[in-house]
């Protein structure tokens, strides 16, 4: 189908574009920006007056809960949420049940996800069998089945020799290794940042050193093995500083932060709000500020939703017993805009952190409106204010600390390979 998107403000960080112009889509690809290709006649047009036209968002962490946790979410519900959130590509962590440690499971998932309304799914394979941290997975086979990177989701490899070998093996094939940084001993039974709020509420704390010690280990091993390391969900100011120093020392490392951690801190736990139970934990206000600044200056490469749908039973429990995680697909864009607005960042720079930058981390030619690329496009009204309610959320997970709040930025259209996956209600 040939579509002409008119009257919008095109913001395309990959090509450093920010101007009012038209975008032309043909055969699922971007056929032109500003100038129609020869002989283009549109079959349909989208009036994007008052809207931003940008590349579809690329999310580095979205749990789809398949296979294994279909009672929490299904591919259908979460893909509808992704489209409603303007997300057209997403990486999913391997912590499904069973974990993504066999090519067959990965093929099944990518096959199930191959529908026109669905975002492109890029599975992160398990680095070790069963995520148990003992035996390497068949990474090369898994890569052929569609895995773009290998990781341990929120678990860690305790045995540092296995970790070293896993990174060496991944480096052999040039596969990126995605790891979260949390020392399991220091984080033992922890449910909140080890600070003032945990002290007051009597919650078991997870100290910042749990992050920095684990981070030191994986940074050293990245240097040793030459593996391409991506640190998932950095949470502390000290962590951001270590990434900055490691990069200055020439270590190949990228990292991301979850959208919640840009806006919330330990104080948002209030009186035991289970929606503020997240992994890694929300840390001090100074940590939050360092994450915001680190993302702005590029030390932190990308912003992700860390989408984790949890059912009501999982959240309606005392704080420490509640399951960690928040739904995020439909909040990624508004939370990006909120950060940009509060930091007074140009839109083209802010949107880079959810389009071209995560695409670079993934090694994908996505997150761009470059001519000839897939027509993955998000059209949103940056001024429209949206109240986050259970009814509005398409995700099966209604768990978000932003429930009831009003955020600016409403997605009007999401095109995936030129196909309208999300359109305004009639």
């Amino acid at each position, binding site marked *: 189908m040939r579509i002409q998107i008119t009257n919008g403000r095109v913001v395309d960080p990959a090509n450093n574009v920010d101007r009012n112009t038209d975008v032309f889509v043909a055969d699922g690809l971007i056929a032109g920006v500003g100038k129609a290709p020869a002989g283009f006649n549109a079959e349909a047009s989208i009036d994007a007056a008052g809207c931003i036209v940008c590349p579809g968002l690329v999310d580095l962490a979205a749990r789809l809960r398949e296979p294994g946790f279909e009672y929490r979410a299904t591919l259908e519900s979460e893909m509808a949420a992704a489209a409603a959130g303007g997300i057209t590509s997403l990486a999913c962590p391997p912590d499904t049940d069973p974990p993504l440690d066999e090519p067959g499971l990965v093929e099944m998932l990518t096959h199930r996800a191959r529908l026109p309304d669905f975002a492109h799914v890029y599975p992160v394979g398990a680095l070790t069998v069963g995520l148990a941290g003992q035996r390497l997975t068949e990474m090369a086979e898994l890569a052929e089945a569609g895995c773009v990177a290998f990781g341990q989701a929120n678990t860690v490899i305790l045995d540092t020799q296995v970790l070293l070998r896993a990174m060496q093996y991944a480096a052999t094939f040039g596969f990126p290794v995605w790891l979260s940084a949390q020392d399991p001993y220091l984080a033992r039974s922890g449910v909140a940042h*080890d*600070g*003032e709020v*945990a*002290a*007051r*509420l*009597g*919650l*078991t*704390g997870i*100290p910042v050193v749990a992050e920095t010690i684990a981070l030191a280990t994986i940074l050293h091993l990245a240097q040793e093995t030459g593996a391409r390391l991506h640190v998932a969900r950095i949470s502390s100011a000290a962590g951001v500083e270590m990434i900055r120093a490691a990069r200055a020392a020439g270590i190949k490392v990228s990292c991301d932060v979850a959208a919640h951690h840009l806006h919330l801190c330990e104080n948002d736990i*209030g*009186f*035991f*709000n*289970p929606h503020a139970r997240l992994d890694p934990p929300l840390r001090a206000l100074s940590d939050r500020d360092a994450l915001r600044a680190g993302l702005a200056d590029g030390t932190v490469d990308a912003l992700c939703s860390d989408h984790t749908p949890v059912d009501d*039973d999982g959240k*309606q*429990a*005392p*704080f*420490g*017993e509640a399951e960690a995680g928040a739904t995020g697909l439909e909040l990624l864009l508004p939370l990006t805009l909120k950060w940009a607005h509060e930091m007074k960042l140009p839109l083209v720079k802010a949107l880079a952190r959810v389009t071209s930058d995560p695409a670079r981390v993934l090694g994908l030619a996505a997150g761009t409106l470059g001519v000839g690329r897939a027509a993955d496009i998000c059209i949103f009204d940056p001024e429209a204010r949206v109240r986050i309610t259970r009814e509005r959320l398409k995700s099966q997970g209604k768990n978000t600390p932003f429930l009831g709040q009003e955020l600016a930025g409403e997605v009007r259209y999401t095109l995936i390979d030129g196909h309208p996956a999300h359109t305004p209600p009639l």
Partner: protein
Amino acid sequence: MNSNPQLNKHGELQHLLTIEGLPREIIAAILDTAAPFTEVAEREVKKVPLLRGKSVFNLFFENSTRTRTTFEIAAKRLSADVINLNINTSSTTKGETLLDTVDNLSALQADIFVVRHASSGAPHLIAQHLAATGRDHIRVINAGDGRHAHPTQGLLDMYTIRHYKKDFTRLTVAIVGDVLHSRVARSQIHALTTLGVPEVRVIAPKTLLPTQVEQMGVRVFNDMREGLRGVDVVMMLRLQNERMNGALLPSPQEYFKYYGLTPDKLDLAKPDAIVMHPGPMNRGVEIDSAVADGRQAVILPQVTFGIAVRMAVMSMLGGA
């Protein structure tokens, strides 16, 4: 969820979940209400009819015969019907959820839930759930949640201090022991700072103190002798058995030597200092018998006052 859920919109006590955020006037009102109740126990008929026809459910998700009994006595002296439920569930044995249990019991026309739970925040969750389901006529009293709070213990401690020392604004109070794991300590700290005690000290080895405990308005001492110097009140905390040998402390013997309250250490406090303990005591671990049974100990009066304070809280919440 972020406003203080234990006060109603007129600022009146709706539930008793924690001492944090309770206005000084409410604490004083509870202590004042408790005073005449101490006399009820002296009467031949130890009963007043304030809660006649009301049902008090003791919901104990964590075992505690002692605390449960004091609530039971308090409720019975107020003429309430008392139903004791020991619901031994750990988070690992999945069955009926906490809120399912609450729903079922509120269908049995409960007026007051007295809740003890191993997880910090469980009584808050119950109070929020009752409000969200239109049953906020049921009142919740926290009888101890995880490491978070034990407000009636904190209040009975304040009653005891007031009884012996009268004026809070001239006192130096030391809390000694396992502050990290203690809901009692947290409630004591909030109560003492709210009532205007100018210096609240905590004394413990670093392994038994929460990070940033000083943010709660206390002065930290690692040396017990230094910390006890010149204090008016010594509040001892119980050290749980499972914490005595391991990564927190090497042995009960070493703990006793450095952090046990012995007569010679107590000599550093003011001569008229009182010694308190929430019970049950570990003699020879956190406290020497000579001190526990000594003239400065007010540990048994604490227990007696505890009944009156719990009667006060229940009558204020449920007497409407």
